[in-house]
């Protein structure tokens, strides 16, 4: 592996790493804040607290909507991901492999839907949710989230499917496997990393989504994490420490994904951008 920057050496590595660690300071500062005693929050400097406390986490877990919101977000994001994959996988396969009339137009529509601004459909969807009595339910939120996760899913999966050598499918077909069999025994196993990447992105999308969740959720029955955080309660007073603790809880799944499943995340991100 020869690179032009070879001579910079270890010192350069340290500088770059240091700079990037500094880049993450807003996150670490909030992390520190979440453990700071209430009385020291607004007295800076000193930057470092005299002691660490779990008090803010206790307040958030015992007195706020956050625990329910975490459950809701987990449920909604999981169901959204599953629904988008179940609907999207066959669709993506068709787009990638089968000769279809009007395929170009369809692809264009899918690309266009990924660029669709949520604000454009929120008012009709609000009336729709109201009419169907789906406000403040998981089902309602999963549906609208899927409508936005689906185009993304198809787009990504179609790309991954094209990477699977068509010869393996043809070989399976010669061996007498039906379309379903090819799917189950050939495409899905080969597609596993791609599926994982796609699922991660769909999950993150739903976990992070705010505009719809803010509009369509009412109570602990369906309120998701970003909304619970944005509407963190208090009269006159801003509970900075509690908000810090709540925002750390809201970041747990994304952070886990970044640390544990980084490879799939990057793959998904890149795949989304480089197709056609």
């Amino acid at each position: 592996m020869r690179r032009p920057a070879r001579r910079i050496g270890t010192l350069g590595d340290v500088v770059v790493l240091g700079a990037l660690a500094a880049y993450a300071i807003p996150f670490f500062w909030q992390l520190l804040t979440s453990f700071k005693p209430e009385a020291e929050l607004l007295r800076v400097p000193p930057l470092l607290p005299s002691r660490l406390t779990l008090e803010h986490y206790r307040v958030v877990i015992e007195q706020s909507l956050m625990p329910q919101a975490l459950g809701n977000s987990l449920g909604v994001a999981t169901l959204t991901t599953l629904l988008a994959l179940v609907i999207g996988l066959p669709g993506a396969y068709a787009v990638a492999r089968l000769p279809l009339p009007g395929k170009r137009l369809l692809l264009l529509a899918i690309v266009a839907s990924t660029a669709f601004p949520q604000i454009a459909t929120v008012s009709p969807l609000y009336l729709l949710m109201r009419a169907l009595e789906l406000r403040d339910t998981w089902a309602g939120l999963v549906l609208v989230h899927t409508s936005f996760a689906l185009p993304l899913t198809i787009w990504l999966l179609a790309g991954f499917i094209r990477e699977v050598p068509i010869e393996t499918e043809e070989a399976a077909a010669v061996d007498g496997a039906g379309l379903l069999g090819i799917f189950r025994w050939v495409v899905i196993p080969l597609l596993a990393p791609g599926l994982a990447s796609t699922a991660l992105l769909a999950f993150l999308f739903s976990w992070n989504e705010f505009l719809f969740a803010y509009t369509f959720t009412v109570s602990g029955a369906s309120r998701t994490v970003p909304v619970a955080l944005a509407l963190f309660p208090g009269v006159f007073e801003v509970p900075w420490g509690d908000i810090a603790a709540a925002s750390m809880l809201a970041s747990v799944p994304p952070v886990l994904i970044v640390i544990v499943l980084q490879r799939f995340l990057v793959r998904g991100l890149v795949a989304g951008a480089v197709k056609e």
Partner: protein
Amino acid sequence: MRASAGRVSRPLRSLLVVWLLALGGCAGGQPESEVVTLVFKYARILGRADPLPALLRSFEAAHPGVRVKGEALPWTSDDQHQFYVINLEGRSPGFDVMMLDCIWVPEFARAGWLTDLTTHLRPDELAPHFPSAVAAATYGGRVWALPWIMNVGLLYYRADLLAKHGLRPPETYEELVDQVRRIRLAERDPALDGYLWQGKQYEGLVVNVLEALWANGARLLAEDGSVFPEPARAADALRFLRGLIETGVSPAWTTAADEELSRRAFGDGHAIFLRNWPYAMELFETADSAVRGKVAVVSLPGRARGERGVGSTGGAHLGVSRRSRHPELAVALARHLASEPAQRAIALGAALSPTRQALYHDPELVRANPEMPRLHAFALAGRPRPVTPYYLLISSTVQPEFSAALVGVKPPERAIADARARLSYFLGAIR
């Protein structure tokens, strides 16, 4: 090929397990029972002790088989309103008793979201409350909410500093500006600000601007429904507020200040004057307060050649959702919370002012806060914001215009003119 699939699975599988466990944990359903549950939406109350849980428990004790679930609202008035508007429109909002900012009651009543309480109440039941609070709860001759918490704009001042420089509390804003100059000149403390108030773009800004308009003889809404009937005086009031910031009487961050930001700066001893609600009074007297024993209150100043100063009234009401499945119980809960013992507990625990006038002369409460009788007079003299179903439409339309004038990106005259043009289009669409 299999190898690559296997490599996928390991980290995925471990995360999958964690995630399934978590999912299972939160999907555990609640036990079904015959208990009636009432949902009470309210904004979390801070103070020495939140009195609400105890009040809700005492209601449950008096009504066996009823459970009351308190659910917190977002923390700014505008967010709360948006929350209610999105969720009350249409069916089954899922809550029974609602804490309402008094300015919303006519709007919510007109929209058909509130239960008409008139027939539920004894004829004289609201007599002990402030008349302005009762007026705010009434629309079309019917009562739609119970007065709960009273608010009125006050001028807090540093009694120690004024006494030190031989000054009396100001009666006009001109006097106030002059006193700020003199005290700051003598104190030579660069960290000492003059007059703090709420200039952030939100409902509190409208309150502050209204107080300035009234002191200058201008109104937001005339009886005949026209907006800014005195545009020149209104623009002049805005220019005066902008001037406070430009001349440094009020700090530059006033344009980002809400109640709490300004209250804290004043409480840390960094200002001479502060406009705020009565809740701040008690917070200045806590053991660790930097201004303990140094703060006094007076009614807001007027203008030298204008009206006498008057604080805007505000406060919270309790409404019952028309969609409540247990209207009788919900009304009972609202009455319980607005009762004299409950208002006393709230006044003692959270320093929020009651709407029942007798409590302002109650020995126990006066002992806790000796200013209670004066507060009563201020609240009686206070002036309500326009009582109209379109209040929020009007307020949300003028907020950005007021803000633009205060930060100086728009001349006051144009801000008023733009606000009028927008309002005539929006109100025109309704009428």
